[in-house]
């Protein structure tokens, strides 16, 4: 059948062939979807698409006929309109993924280029279906490709045309799911390891404004996805949490380093943005806690993996060493404070599952910081207040309503956020976070082990306390954790 289509298309000009191939495949997949809930994407359609959309010649002899930029724009419009007009969500998804899933072939270059342009255009003309498809694509695709898409979008909207960031910003109102994935990808792209990988100002400002407006944004993907408990390696995280924590912690030092190299003045504005971001991230963590408990996942699923923390802490240590002679005490203090706060809150909210011993060994090399000291050593109370809870993990402090929690710790946090250059004192003002939770159970890891083995769901776990968060066997992509939700598209609003 595919060869019939191919023969009929060979004689058409590039654009109408592209249009027709979409038409044919639409019919093909629609009929398939009626037979099976999850259509098999075969090789045939993908080859057709490669030949007639991406203009990769099938026969070795014929040379590739590149589309002109004009034709390409027309093609983009055709694609945009197609996704807009196709009402059936599954068909859209299948078409989109057969169009743009990397195949490891040489068409991938064109694929990524076209995807970048298509997404960029969809952003400009607010095509929700395309953006939703793109969001799913970001979830299903290895991170290297996701990063490229993010790069393309950032390139288009941050700086190329002055003021165009506004166009991107409004996407928040159109597809928060896409926004969430986009942030994750951007956080993976700009990991602050070098000067070039510090996020541009416009981008940062936009992301901060998004998250600040609604911290739940960073959890959307997590909430809408069937949780395969172990994340395949090389894919984006469920949430941008880890990436954003990294931004907040590294930022003061990274900017300081950039200053040293470029010799510019201090960037107060940026640092304010990071403070704001830090606050939002902590708030997001608080929200996470409610969701975790709601789904009775608390203590069983870590959104911030301990393994991801290790490189962060190491990098922080290196940066501290590197910048030590430069009178960067303030920045170091700030970075360590933020790290301590993030650790504390994420442990408290169940986003991070680990013992204090692990934490202690991890942070041993970092320069001294009072707050960190407190977080690592934990509360002094020996008696567990809630013996019914699993003693190895921090229980939630309160059981807040679904709205924003009003913690004493919270009251302290904005203060901190507003004062990026604060002295040691405001940090100590943040101490109530810990004093407010005197009832926590600071049980060492080994003490936790016997209790842990008693858990019914994990009968034969190794001695690692952090591991219970990975119950499913590796290599089994079975989506049985939340069995009711096969294709869960549940936008927040």
């Amino acid at each position, binding site marked *: 059948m595919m060869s019939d289509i191919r023969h009929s298309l060979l004689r058409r000009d590039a654009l109408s062939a592209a249009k027709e191939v979409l038409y044919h495949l639409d019919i093909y997949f629609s009929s398939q979807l009626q037979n099976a809930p999850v259509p098999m994407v075969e090789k045939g359609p993908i080859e057709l698409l490669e030949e007639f959309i991406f203009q990769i010649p099938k026969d070795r002899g014929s040379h590739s006929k590149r589309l002109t*930029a004009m034709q*390409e724009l*027309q093609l983009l*419009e055709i694609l945009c309109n197609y996704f807009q007009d196709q009402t059936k969500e599954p068909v859209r998804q299948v078409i989109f993924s057969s169009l743009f899933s990397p195949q490891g072939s040489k068409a991938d270059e064109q694929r990524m280029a076209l995807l970048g342009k298509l997404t960029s255009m969809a952003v400009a003309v607010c095509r929700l279906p395309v953006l939703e498809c793109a969001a799913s694509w970001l979830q299903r695709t290895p991170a290297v490709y996701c990063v490229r898409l993010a790069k393309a979008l950032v390139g288009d909207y941050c700086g*190329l*045309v002055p003021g165009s960031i*506004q166009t991107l910003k409004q996407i928040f109102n159109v597809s928060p799911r896409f926004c969430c994935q986009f942030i994750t990808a951007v956080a993976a792209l700009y990991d602050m390891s070098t000067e070039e990988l510090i996020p541009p100002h416009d981008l940062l400002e936009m992301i901060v404004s998004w998250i600040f407006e609604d911290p739940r944004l960073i959890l959307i993907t997590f909430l809408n996805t069937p949780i395969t408990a172990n994340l395949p390696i090389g894919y984006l995280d469920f949430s941008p949490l880890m990436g954003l924590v990294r931004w907040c912690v590294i930022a003061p030092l990274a900017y300081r380093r950039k200053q040293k190299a470029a010799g510019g003045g201090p960037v107060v504005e940026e640092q304010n943005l990071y403070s704001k971001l830090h606050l939002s991230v902590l708030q997001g963590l608080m929200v996470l806690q409610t969701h975790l408990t709601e789904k009775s996942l608390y203590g069983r699923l870590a959104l911030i993996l301990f393994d991801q923390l290790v490189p962060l802490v190491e990098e922080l240590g290196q940066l501290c060493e590197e910048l030590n002679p430069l009178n960067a005490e303030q920045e170091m203090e700030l970075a360590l404070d933020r790290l301590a706060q993030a650790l504390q809150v994420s442990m408290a909210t169940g986003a991070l599952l680990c013992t204090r011993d692990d934490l202690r060994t991890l942070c041993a090399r970092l320069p001294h910081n009072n707050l960190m000291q407190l977080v690592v050593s934990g509360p002094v109370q020996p008696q567990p207040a809630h013996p019914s809870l699993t003693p190895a993990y921090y229980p939630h402090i309160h059981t807040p309503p679904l709205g924003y929690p009003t913690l004493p710790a919270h009251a302290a946090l904005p203060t901190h956020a507003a004062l990026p250059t604060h002295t040691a004192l405001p940090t100590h003002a943040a101490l109530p976070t810990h004093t407010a939770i005197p009832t926590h159970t600071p049980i060492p890891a080994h003490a936790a082990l016997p209790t842990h083995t008693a858990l019914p769901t994990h009968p034969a776990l190794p001695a690692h306390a952090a591991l219970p968060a990975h119950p499913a066997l590796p290599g089994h992509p079975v989506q049985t954790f939340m069995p009711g939700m096969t294709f869960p598209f549940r936008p927040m609003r």
Partner: protein
Amino acid sequence: MISLQPQGVTPQLSPQELSLQIKSFLSGSDPQHGQKLSLRDHARCSLLLLRCLPSARHAVLEHLRSVFHDSVSSFLNERDSQDCLPQSSSSQRRGPPPSTPGLDEVTQEVQKVLEEFIKLNPRAWAPLISAWSIELMGQLSSKHANRQGMPHSTSLNELLQLWMSCGATRVLMDIYTLCLSTMIDSCPDACVDALLDTSVQHSPHFDWVVAHIGNSFPSTIISRVLSCGLKDFCAHSSTSETSEKRVPKLGSVVGILGHLSSRHGNSIRQEILRMFHESLRPGSKQQRATLPYLLQLAALSPSLLGTVCQDLVDSLKPSTLSQLQQHCSTLPRDELDNMLNLCIHLASQTSTGAPRLLRFLLDTAMPASVITTPGLAVHDSVRDACDRIVRLLLLSLQKQVYGRTGGRAASDAPPKAVPFLDAMRGHLPELCAEMLRLERKRHLWLHQLLGLLCIYSSPPCAPEALCLLLTLAHSSEELGLAVQLHAVLSSSMQGLAQAAVTRCVAQVHAGALTDKRALQLLQNMTLIVQSEESGMGREVGTALSDYLPDFGQLLLHSNPGVCEAACLLLCCCPLPSSLPPAQLHLLIRSSSFLLFHSMHIRSSAGVSSASRLLLRLCKASHAGKKAVLHQLVEGALHQGNVGLFGGDGMKDVAQKLEGASASLLENNNHLGSTVDFSGSVWSVFHAGVIGSGLKPEEKDRVIGQVECTENTQSLLSLLSSCCAKNGEEDGQLITLDPEAAKTLAVTITECACPDVTNSELSWPPEEHARTTVQRDLLIYTCFRKSPLLFLLLHLVAQGCPALCYCSVLLRGLLATLLAYWEASRESSTTDSPWHLMASCELVSCMGEGQLLPPALANMHEMFSLLAPYEVRLLLLSVWDFVRANGPFPQRFVFQASKAIFSRDFTREGDPAKYMDIVHSVLHRNVDRLGLLSGRFQV
């Protein structure tokens, strides 16, 4: 249509409006009303998209491209139609051609928008837009290149003028310039890359752009073009692609640099050198590729090679060299070999810097010596490498030279030039001089190079080189190099020795050589001719024989050494079988002059060499013999020379002229080295300079007795050798050839007595002597001045009948002596020593010449013991005898047994009657002369 805000922030369009805009941009028509958009509206629509839809920027730029195309086309059409207008309306052409106003506005709008973008975010926009504008300019220039009325792509200025008067292209150029100037501090590579690529694609038609930009940003363009080329080179070399793909980009690098080199050659040179030195610094990034890259670049552009080569060589200090060596030692072998080959190729292509390059290579490749300063010595491995380079270079030159001549026979194409050799041609003298220093290894290399050079530029070069070597060589070892060179070349060149000799002669005659050099040259040539075993000696000898007159002139050179050397050369070079008389005479005149001149300056070497030459010439032919004898006698009796042989003529001849600084004789000698005397050498011997009186006297040239004797001896032995019978060796007892002796006699007579009246051989009665008093007095003065005459007469007397031809002289002298003794009132003849001597000599001479019988001839033995009147009586009897028995050659009889002529007096009547007076004088003085009486028995 939604009107466009030309500047400021992005207009906020709703997504729906934006979709409409996209539609109308793509379809080219108004989506609401359906009518077609005007060009201008379409362009504005595209600009709007550029602001609002980033992903559409490529499409927009593509559309704008067509706008510029239209604009340029309409401009050119306007221009053409104006050209077609009659001349009367040409005044309208002064103003800029009115192109479509809409289009111009649009292009300016585009410029505004794009420039705004570039200023706001240069990093993102400048590479994109610069590439776009450059490519567009490339397309435009190529597209319209063949249009009628377009200036040819070689007339760069006209093209530039034309395109800059076109609004659209000017806008593009401005845009590109802006891109470049905003990016110039951070990373202009992106912009320059595009320039290079486009330049490759649209090369000749695009040059005006490169020229314009290059002149606006020379330093940036130069360094960037170089570094872009390097990057490209790196990229291609890492994937180890074939070199064909590498060429275009390099080609355009070369093209651009070539274009800029006329004005900015210095910066190019500095930049390239900087790159080179940077690449040597350890740890530089593109270290590996830089060297091959630069080499490749130089290989593609001779002008670049020329600009860089000289300075490069200067900057290669020992430290740099060892760095280079370390750097190269890390390279893989085949890469190294490639580089080496390329180096060799480049070296053979070097032209202006060739001599310096050669010197550098040789200096570096020379083995270390004790004299080398320790700090300046190069590392051994560097030296070895250099040694290898030198040998390979020579090998490659050899291939080129010999391959060239081989190819010429096959086709008529002009032979391929080898710039290195072309450049070295002008430095032939240095090359030769350096080679002759005979430093180890070096002179072998140079010798090889010289050989190649000679073959390469065969007509003028080989003879010149040989000539130089002949001039400069000081030892036989050095001269050996010339012989070797000749041996190498002679197989491939004909008439080489001939040409070399011609050139040598020309050099000498042009006065291009100092005396010392000329001397050396002559000596060397002599040496070569004498070393018979080599073919060169023979060839040079034959060649020399064509230039005998020229060397003959050298005999008159002011430097005695040169004269002598020339003389020796002439002695050993073979004479042609038939020497033209003019040449022969010239040689003879010159050499005889040389002989006397050498005597004047007391140079015995000169005397002997001149004698050798004269003897040689004398034996060359019969005429030669005559001429030699004539010249010798004439010279010996000449006023200027008589002093040499004990005469005192000069003191009498002229008065001294005070204040005269130079002698005319010397002046004439100097003239002699350049002027070919047509007549006798003495014929231009003036009596003096008009206005300054008579010729100035030789100043007190007192010649001692010893010198006189020596001179006399040499002259006489020479004369006798000349007159010797053929086949008689020198050193043996010589028998004179009668013919030669006759010639000698006649010559003497002519010289001593130019007056020929009454000069028949037979003697008149003694009384008749009175009629020839004047002539006799002349003869007397002549004898008086040069005592040599007596010796000459003695010599003549040896060749027997010859003295007859001197009878005039004998008669004249005898007549004056008779008169003297008659008038003398002294008591003893010893009071008049000269007359006594003359009487004795005369009589003994006549006796030797067999004009008198021995009994009569012996009478001179007693002259010193007699009174003057007795002597007169005796002499009278001599006269009587001779008058009666005339001095005729026919009286002599050839005696075959002895192979001589002799005279038998017994058959000529009784001589006793002439002995009466002798006997009576004997009687009268028998107390003193009794002892002698036995001598006078008949």
